[in-house]
């Protein structure tokens, strides 16, 4: 009897797709982004993505700053790994200037870049676990990030807005005890990695939420221009560090982990492995690097030492001109790309031969990922959006610029 009643109700229920606005300020969408979801029950039928809520006009601001003044703005692109943005921009301008940085600088950039990548990956892993309710794993990962930030703070003087890169070099050499501190940090990072691994990788709840959700095929990922972890999780082994080496990446040995399924769990696994690879790269760099200058010796680009600035007119003029008129970059255009936390971070720069950029365009990996994110959402459950949106690691500052 009772079953009959249920049956008749089931048949009579009139269903129609429901439109649901998710975001722009949703607690689980870290980064302000709005999804207009069409739901059939709990299944996402259609997703329209709207980005741009964090638009600051970075590219326009840069046109009114000297080449050097752009660095603080790049900090605010992917603010979880600002050092990588600094170096990506510096490399682009150096290509346009046609200058080489000293070997030690390349090592420092590699080390600090990887330290920054650790911060990016640990944050993503931790936050992903948190959003699925795994507070413990989050705390471990964030402890790792704090340790990494302590290192960054010691070298750059700041934790987040570091502005550590310079055209033709870096702000300063590593601190004398950097290697020692890294040794201590490294040990704890490995412990944290192991603990997080134990907490998550074989955790049934975690697996249920991650495995097979947010899937994208290698073909779709390539056609949408995906790079970074999102692409590698599908099995395409594209890593700018390996395929187009820059800095000191051709001098160190590291693996490019790839996934098989292109799902959330593979992205998690790739990140976990990349944490280990980053540690490996830093270890090798510290062993290989030799003392030496950290800045290019081109007087048109690099500020002279303060002692010379205050005591000789030549260096005073040079300092004055670089500060007030900016580095004079020859006219031309360049596209330069590096592997940032989320994938290929490209800077397309046009110079008209003055002290300020004529145009800067950023190929932000997050922005490209957001272009095809509906492919990852559609056909899956509403709840799957949460882990998927985490593992593609959209960073508003970088995506919306």
């Amino acid at each position, binding site marked *: 009897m009772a079953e009959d009643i249920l049956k008749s109700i089931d048949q009579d229920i009139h269903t129609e797709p429901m439109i649901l606005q998710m975001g722009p300020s949703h607690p689980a969408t870290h980064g302000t982004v709005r999804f207009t979801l069409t739901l059939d029950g709990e299944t996402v039928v259609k997703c329209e993505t709207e980005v741009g809520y964090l638009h600051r006009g970075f590219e326009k601001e840069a046109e009114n700053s000297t080449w050097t003044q752009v660095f603080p703005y790049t900090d605010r692109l992917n603010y979880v790994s600002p050092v990588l943005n600094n170096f990506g921009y510096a490399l682009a301008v150096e290509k346009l200037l046609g200058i080489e940085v000293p070997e030690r600088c390349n090592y420092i950039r590699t080390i600090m870049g990887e330290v920054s990548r650790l911060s990016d990956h640990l944050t993503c892993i931790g936050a992903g676990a948190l959003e699925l309710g795994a507070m413990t794993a989050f705390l471990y990962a964030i402890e790792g990030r704090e340790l990494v930030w302590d290192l960054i703070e010691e070298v750059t003087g700041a934790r987040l807005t570091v502005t550590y890169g310079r055209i033709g070099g870096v702000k300063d050499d590593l601190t004398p005890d950097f290697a020692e501190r890294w040794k201590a940090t490294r040990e704890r990072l490995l412990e944290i990695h192991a603990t997080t691994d134990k907490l998550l990788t074989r955790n049934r709840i975690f697996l249920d939420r991650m495995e097979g959700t947010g899937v994208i095929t290698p073909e779709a990922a390539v056609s949408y221009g995906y790079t970074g972890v999102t692409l590698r999780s599908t099995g395409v082994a594209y890593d700018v560090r390996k395929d187009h080496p820059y800095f000191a990446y051709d001098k160190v040995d590291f693996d490019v982990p790839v996934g098989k399924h292109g799902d959330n769990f593979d992205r998690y696994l790739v990140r976990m492995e990349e944490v280990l690879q980053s540690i490996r790269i830093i270890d090798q760099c510290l062993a290989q690097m030799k003392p030496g200058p950290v800045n290019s010796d081109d*007087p*048109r680009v690099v500020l*002279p030492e303060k002692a*010379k600035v*205050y*005591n*000789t*007119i*030549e*260096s*005073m*003029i*040079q300092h*004055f*001109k670089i500060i*007030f*008129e900016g580095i*004079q970059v020859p006219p031309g255009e360049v596209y330069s790309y590096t592997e940032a936390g989320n994938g290929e971070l490209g800077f397309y720069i046009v110079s008209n031969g003055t002290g300020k950029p004529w145009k800067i365009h950023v190929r932000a990996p997050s922005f490209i990922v957001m272009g095809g994110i509906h492919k990852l959402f559609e056909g899956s459950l509403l709840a799957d959006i949460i882990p998927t949106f985490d593992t593609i690691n959209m960073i508003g500052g970088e995506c919306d610029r």
Partner: protein
Amino acid sequence: MPKVNINGTEIEVDKGTTILRAAADAGFDVPHFCYHPALSIPANCRMCLVEVEGMPKLQPGCYTQVNEGMVVKTKSERVIKARKAVLEFILLNHPVDCPICDQAGECKLQDYYVDYDAQESRQRTDKQNKVKAYPLGPEVVYDGERCILCTRCIRFCDEVTQSSELTIVERGDRAEIRTFPGRELDNAYSMCVVDLCPVGALTSRDFRFKCRVWLLTSTDSVCTGCSTGCSIHLDHFRNTAQRYRPRYNPRVNDYWMCDKGRLSYKQIHDDRNTAISVNGADVNWHAATEALAPKLAKAVEDGGDGVAFLVSPQATVEDLFVAKQFASNVLKTSNFYMGGNAPGESDKFLIRADKNPNTGGIAHVFGSMAALSPFPALVEAMEAGKVKVLYMMGAQTPCNDEMRARFVAALEKVGLFVFQSAHAAELSGKANFVLPACTHAEKDGTFINFEGVRQAIHQAFAPHGASLPDWQIFMRVARAMKNPMSYTFLAEIQKEAFAAKPVIEAEPAAEQPAPSAE
């Protein structure tokens, strides 16, 4: 017409052209300190040395004239080496002054060091000490340590003003610029040497430490000091004019301007009318024009005879054109009187006795000066009680102090005094209506100088307070009087103002400085 080859570029130039000029024509900059196109050529700085094929030594490009078939290299290794050496010598005794130097930011030494030298100091000895902040005259301060002894200032005083105050004293690394004993650098154009100085050795006492030059925005304008109307760069920062600099205009002032004119930028901000007031009460434009309209309308009804209109030659042609229409069509009066500054000193070079920039504009708009009655006639009419309404443009009056006092006293007899002016003078307190106008720095327009040369002025910054360009004020009053005029843009006024009668001589098309100027 000799043909020369400069860095591989063939160019044909006039006979007697120097290599530096020919290179500039061919598109190659040859650096130089002592050379200035308006002065004689001493070839003493050696910065412009170039390689000429067939000549064993490098030649000064500013002095050497081109010959048929000459092959010149301005970028060869020898030339670059020589330039580096010259700059190293010049910088040997140059003080580390950039942070406290007014020239920093527009300094040729800085530019050339970065462009052509860019190597570190090799000096191991102390720098030579010389005078700092030594006054050469009332407007110019000299810094011996910064001086590179290019002698531009000396040649300017010898050749342009022909007053020959300056010379070099001492020899070698003790050489300095000085005035001759008992003399002062006090000619009427003395501040031109500040512009001429390629480094920060000569600074303007007025501009010293006032504003860093890279903060300044430069707007092309015209000096309002006299009827020469020197072309100027109006340099301003945060809505305040900081200085005038002469702008190269071969038709008017060449590279020069007089000190008085140069310092007249101060008047832009002095004693300004910034609020609209009706009998002492601050109101907005709408209230003021609505209150003014019936009063003017009543005067028009009573017959235009009682209305006197004082026209200012400080206003632009566009303002004057609208003023004439306003007076004739709206106020129905033809009682025009001449305003503006009283005549003053003059010389044979740039300074004119007529101290108004746009007397030529009045002649252009009103047909001839005869259409306007002289100022004393206005004072007499006021004293006789014939003037019921006085509409006054500008605060200046072309008269002596005694006449001015009579004018101010006679204002008591005027029933309605409308005072439309940028400056308050002593008149704002006596006016029934104060309508704040803006100065030439705050509006676009045209001036016509004493020779009939037409020059455009451009708006440098936003009008102060509630002030508006004169023509817009006339439009507002006319609209309130239900007799509106139909202009929206300045270009419409210009079209009409210059359609009736073309200006005697138009502004020269080429406003750009000659190559290698300064």
